[in-house]
């Protein structure tokens, strides 16, 4: 598999970044819902948020890298059988997915840093707080984090269904291309 994208194929870097981000988003969503339901004496009561935040910060860096790579790469052309509305719809959803990804991660950061505490990453380093002390910051950021994360996962599911439709009904290469073929 080639590393870089060209007009017809996604390269290994884009394919890997796509699937890693997809996997991590769904994992963090599940972890987030689960960890907030834990009881105080659960060993994961502290460990869950520790992983959630640390992985979230790494994901943020990966998404920035992905966006950079995407801007720098030649974008594969849409397949000829894709109808105009499908092309527009796909672009719109892709844009929204990126936007939601960034917004979810920023809102998460704003919860943990609302009181000026830094956001620890794997006990290795910490991201300092910037915006702090807004009116009910942790509550508002918390609501936004949950709503946007749910929207992101819902939209990603729609995106996956659309890819499956291309593979199973249209029998085109849309999904295969995202596997590097």
């Amino acid at each position, binding site marked *: 598999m080639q590393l870089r994208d060209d007009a017809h194929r996604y390269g290994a870097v884009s394919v890997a970044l796509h699937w890693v981000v997809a996997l991590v988003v769904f994992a963090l969503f599940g972890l987030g819902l689960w960890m907030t339901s834990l009881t*105080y*004496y659960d060993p994961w009561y502290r460990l869950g948020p520790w992983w959630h935040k640390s992985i979230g910060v790494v994901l943020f860096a990966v998404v920035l890298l992905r966006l950079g790579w995407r801007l720098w790469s030649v974008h594969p052309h849409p397949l000829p059988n894709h109808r105009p509305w499908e092309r527009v719809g796909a672009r719109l959803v892709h844009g929204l997915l990126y936007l939601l990804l960034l917004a979810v991660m920023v809102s998460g950061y704003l*919860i943990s840093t*609302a*009181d000026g505490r830094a956001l620890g990453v794997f006990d290795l380093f910490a991201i300092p707080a910037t915006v702090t002390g807004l009116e*009910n910051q942790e*509550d508002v950021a918390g609501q936004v984090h949950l709503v946007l994360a749910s929207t992101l996962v819902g939209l990603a599911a729609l995106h996956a269904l659309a890819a499956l439709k291309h593979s199973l009904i249209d029998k085109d290469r849309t999904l295969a291309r995202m596997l590097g073929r």
Partner: protein
Amino acid sequence: MKKYILPLLFGLAVALPAQAEDYVIDTDGAHAYIHFKIKHLGYSWLSGRFNEFSGDFSYDDKNPTASRIKVAINPGSIDSNHAERDKHLRGKDFLNVGKFPEATFVSTGYQDLGNGQGRLSGDLTLRGVTKPITIDVEQIGHGPDPWGGYRRGFHGTTEFKLADFGIDYDLGPASRTVIMELSVEGVRK
């Protein structure tokens, strides 16, 4: 006839015993606080406060048993100096402030124990549950302030079980009772 009424009323007012003094709690100047503390795991104290509340009280030196107080507290203003914990405390596991945006304490009686000590009974409404509680009260002092007003201050402590007010999130066996500390300075109206 009319000209007799005014002097009569005036005479009546003079003859009546001293009226209870009404005070407004000085939350504007923040000479009042509502603190709470609860054991953490049984190993230490976790302390916090409610930043937003208001109220007034009435006190009569000659008839302390007629004293009364009413305080409204915004439970959403809970502040334990940790945003993530405060978010949890405001949520459904604890105060559920979305559904119960106000807590109140309304006194129902006051027992004067002498030496500035007293026992205040009243109804605490928290998380939609109203239950009677008793607050041990100490009068700290009273007198004119340097700016032409008159002030009087009390300090009260009480404790209750969280479960009494529907908060059953398990913080461990040592952390079922919360201690509340209410300190108020009133400015005479």
